[in-house]
């Protein structure tokens, strides 16, 4: 975990040191300090409620009024300053049950949850899926994301890049598990909305029915606001629907999840162009009190090469995908050339194939290494027959007799530019060639359509032509107007837009309730601390991330049927069992250190603990070397490492992964549990040079004492051996 101070943890340390030092000598003042310490400990352990912080402040005040001596005054000043400067952090600990610094050990969030822009409690829902409790898993997901099914298909899954399991072999397939649970819950009729607060009669306007806008609408509706969404298209979904092809995200899935919003009371106004049909002033007169702008980035960059302007066969990828999404199945041309290397370019190329184009070529100016598109999408495109042409720079659109002939291109090489540490494509002289095409699709990026917001006078823009906001609160320069999603970040990801919408809903609620806005982005909320899935170490190591079953290649080339068919039930349950439960194990390494350095056993091979330099991990090694002494469990600060005696065995487990399981032996005289043989052997080895108590018999301490008592008190309990006595 990063070494970042936490004010809650620092307050506890400071107060404990003051009490332990004995300098808070006055009984009443000491008692108050101890009460404060108890309350702060509750906050650090995730047990605090809404009354805790006011109670702490009251007790600090009381301490101050008790004729304080110099030491007490110092404690009071420290606590008062810390509480004032970090009020938000204390509150966040209470509300989220997470400590972003990781210093409050019980509240350290899992890396996957911290990584998710929407803050989904991934370890909890993955474990629930592993237990077969899909509906509950979807309930957990929908506390933080209104679109589990959509995200289960198209999320860029930043969580998987941070997944600690990836340091061992491959990350948990978090995205696909989410998709599995959502589909199952929807199919079984257990997909439901969370409880909604009573209507508060206040109106909020949302501009744009994309993932960001609908996410904000969902959270505001849950808080009891009357939410109206204004959308220029005739359908909801935004880029989900218009930018992502149906073979990746079927429209029915969007429609089903949007229907859940409608059932919450969110009102959609389709074919309503902001700036034309409605504007800010009109809506304010209709009692709208706050606005959320989530218009996305739907305008394409142009190629800016000669011939592009006057050629109708040069089209923009976003427009092309939008037309197809709305039902146009016209083949754009026999031979299609797509210019670009991002996900939109890949989507356009694969869509062309499905419409019947015979040759589809994607021209990208750098190499595959620099290509920003998702590598799985690139691979699938290649499988389907898209030709990828790297290091290719389009320089001119060629026409003859008013018909497109193709794109004249130059080969490129990547070169380092002086004083810059990135490689640039440099055209190779004399390498010109014609890439024949009936249609050229430009997919080199999108930008925000600023024109649609012209009526919002006073809105500030960045030099990147995106809306200027405060990242933590999504506030814009206009009072009562908030913004997030692609309109703020530029073309980004679905999950970022969802996270932005969620952040905006919270900020709008604070704005309308007169609550001060946060200075930092929110810390994700822990939704539960559920039991582990028990998995033997060998199974934990040998389970592999399942391959996603795909539609057969012929059907992929010819239809818009969903390509990824989803995991089978067995795949999903098994995959969930690979999770390491990093919401409980902090990877602090104390267990490894005590086993290796104090006990001299070195039975824990946990190479994945280190973020920067992970080395080999093998849970199976433990059973070979472990002596079941329990030192690791005794030193674990979170209870992740556990040792327990059950059913005649001593079981050592880390977050449910059974590392060692040994048969328990009993005292030969009285039958009391002694421990497993390996532990008794370990103790005997360590003590044999100084004592020999019971010879070869296995006896408990009490029975051993009885046995040795007959030799006299000077020799009991341990009888020294003659060889030991001779040593100096």
């Amino acid at each position: 975990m990063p070494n970042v101070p936490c004010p809650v943890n620092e307050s506890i340390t400071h107060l404990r040191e003051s009490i332990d030092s004995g300098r808070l000598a006055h009984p009443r003042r000491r008692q108050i300090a101890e009460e404060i310490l108890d309350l702060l400990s509750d906050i650090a352990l995730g047990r605090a409620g809404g009354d805790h912080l006011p109670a702490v402040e009251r007790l600090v005040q009381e301490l101050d009024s008790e004729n304080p001596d110099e030491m007490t005054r110092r404690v009071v000043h420290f606590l008062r300053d810390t509480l004032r400067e970090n009020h938000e952090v204390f509150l966040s600990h209470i509300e989220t049950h997470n400590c972003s610094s990781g210093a409050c050990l019980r509240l350290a969030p899992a890396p996957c949850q911290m990584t998710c822009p929407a803050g989904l409690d991934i370890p909890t829902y993955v474990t629930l899926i592993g237990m077969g409790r899909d509906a509950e898993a979807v309930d957990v997901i929908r506390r933080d994301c209104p679109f589990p099914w959509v995200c289960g298909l198209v999320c860029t899954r930043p969580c998987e890049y941070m997944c600690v399991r990836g340091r061992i072999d491959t990350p948990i397939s978090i995205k696909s598990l989410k998709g599995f649970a959502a589909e199952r819950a929807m199919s079984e009729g257990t997909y439901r909305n969370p409880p909604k607060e009573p209507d508060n009669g206040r109106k909020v306007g949302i501009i744009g029915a994309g993932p960001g806008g609908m996410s904000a609408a969902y959270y505001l509706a849950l808080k009891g606001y009357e939410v109206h969404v204004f959308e220029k298209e005739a359908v909801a979904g935004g880029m989900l629907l218009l930018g992502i092809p149906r073979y990746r995200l079927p429209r029915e899935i969007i429609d089903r999840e949007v229907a859940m919003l409608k059932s919450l009371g969110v009102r959609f106004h389709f074919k309503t162009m902001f700036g034309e049909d409605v504007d800010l002033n009109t809506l304010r007169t209709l009692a709208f009190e706050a606005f959320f702008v989530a218009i996305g980035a739907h305008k394409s960059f142009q190629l800016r090469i000669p011939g592009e302007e006057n050629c109708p066969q040069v089209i923009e990828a976003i427009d092309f995908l939008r037309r197809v999404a709305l039902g146009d199945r016209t083949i754009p041309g026999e031979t299609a050339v797509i210019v670009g290397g991002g996900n939109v370019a890949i989507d356009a190329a694969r869509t062309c194939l499905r419409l019947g184009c015979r040759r589809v070529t994607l021209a990208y100016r750098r190499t595959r290494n620099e290509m920003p598109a998702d590598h799985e999408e690139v691979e699938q495109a290649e499988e389907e027959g898209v030709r990828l042409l790297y290091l290719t720079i389009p320089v001119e659109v060629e026409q003859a007799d008013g018909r497109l002939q193709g794109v004249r291109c130059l080969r490129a090489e990547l070169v380092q530019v002086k004083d810059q540490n990135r490689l640039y494509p440099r055209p190779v002289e004399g390498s010109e060639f014609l890439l024949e095409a009936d249609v050229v699709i430009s997919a080199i990026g999108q930008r925000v359509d600023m024109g649609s917001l012209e009526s919002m006078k006073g809105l500030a823009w960045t030099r990147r032509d995106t809306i200027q906001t405060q990242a933590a609160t999504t506030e814009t320069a206009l009072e009562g107007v908030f913004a997030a999603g692609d309109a703020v970040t530029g073309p980004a990801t679905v999950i970022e837009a969802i996270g932005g919408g969620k952040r905006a809903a919270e900020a709008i609620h604070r704005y309308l309730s007169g609550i001060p806005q946060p200075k930092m982005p929110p810390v994700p909320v822990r939704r539960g601390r559920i039991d582990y899935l028990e998995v033997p170490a060998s199974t934990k190591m040998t389970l592999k991330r399942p391959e996603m079953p795909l539609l057969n290649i012929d059907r992929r080339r010819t239809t818009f049927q969903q390509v990824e068919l989803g995991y089978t039930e067995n795949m999903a349950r098994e995959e969930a069992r690979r999770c390491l439960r990093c919401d409980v194990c902090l990877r602090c390494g104390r267990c490894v250190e005590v086993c290796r350095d104090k006990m001299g056993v070195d039975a824990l091979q946990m190479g994945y603990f280190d973020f920067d330099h992970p080395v080999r991990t093998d849970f199976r090694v433990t059973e070979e070397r472990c002596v079941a002494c329990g030192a690791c469990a005794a030193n674990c600060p979170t209870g992740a490492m556990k040792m327990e005696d059950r059913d005649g065995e001593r079981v050592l487990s880390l977050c449910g992964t059974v590392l060692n399981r040994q048969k328990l032996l009993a005292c030969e005289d009285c039958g009391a549990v002694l421990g497993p043989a390996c532990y008794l052997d370990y103790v005997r080895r360590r003590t044999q040079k100084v004592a020999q108590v019971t010879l070869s018999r296995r006896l408990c301490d009490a029975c051993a004492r009885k046995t040795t008592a007959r030799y006299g008190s000077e020799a009991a309990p341990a009888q020294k051996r003659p060889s030991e006595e001779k040593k100096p």
Partner: protein
Amino acid sequence: MTFRRGQKVEVYQRSRDESWEPYMNEFVGLHGIITDPDSVINDPDALVEVSLEGRGTHRFPQDCLRPLADVSGPAGA
């Protein structure tokens, strides 16, 4: 530097870019993983999405980032 998805990076300095906000000062020195590079045209001016170890996911200007090791993310992600 052209950043790639899955690449380990360090926030090694504050940025002078307008998108750098005061709360980001706390992130200098932290390590993370690129989760969404400039997804379109490898623009050195674009904001890239970085997931910082234990501190969440943020969009940063590229001038505050440097790669830690020339390795891609784990297979399968």
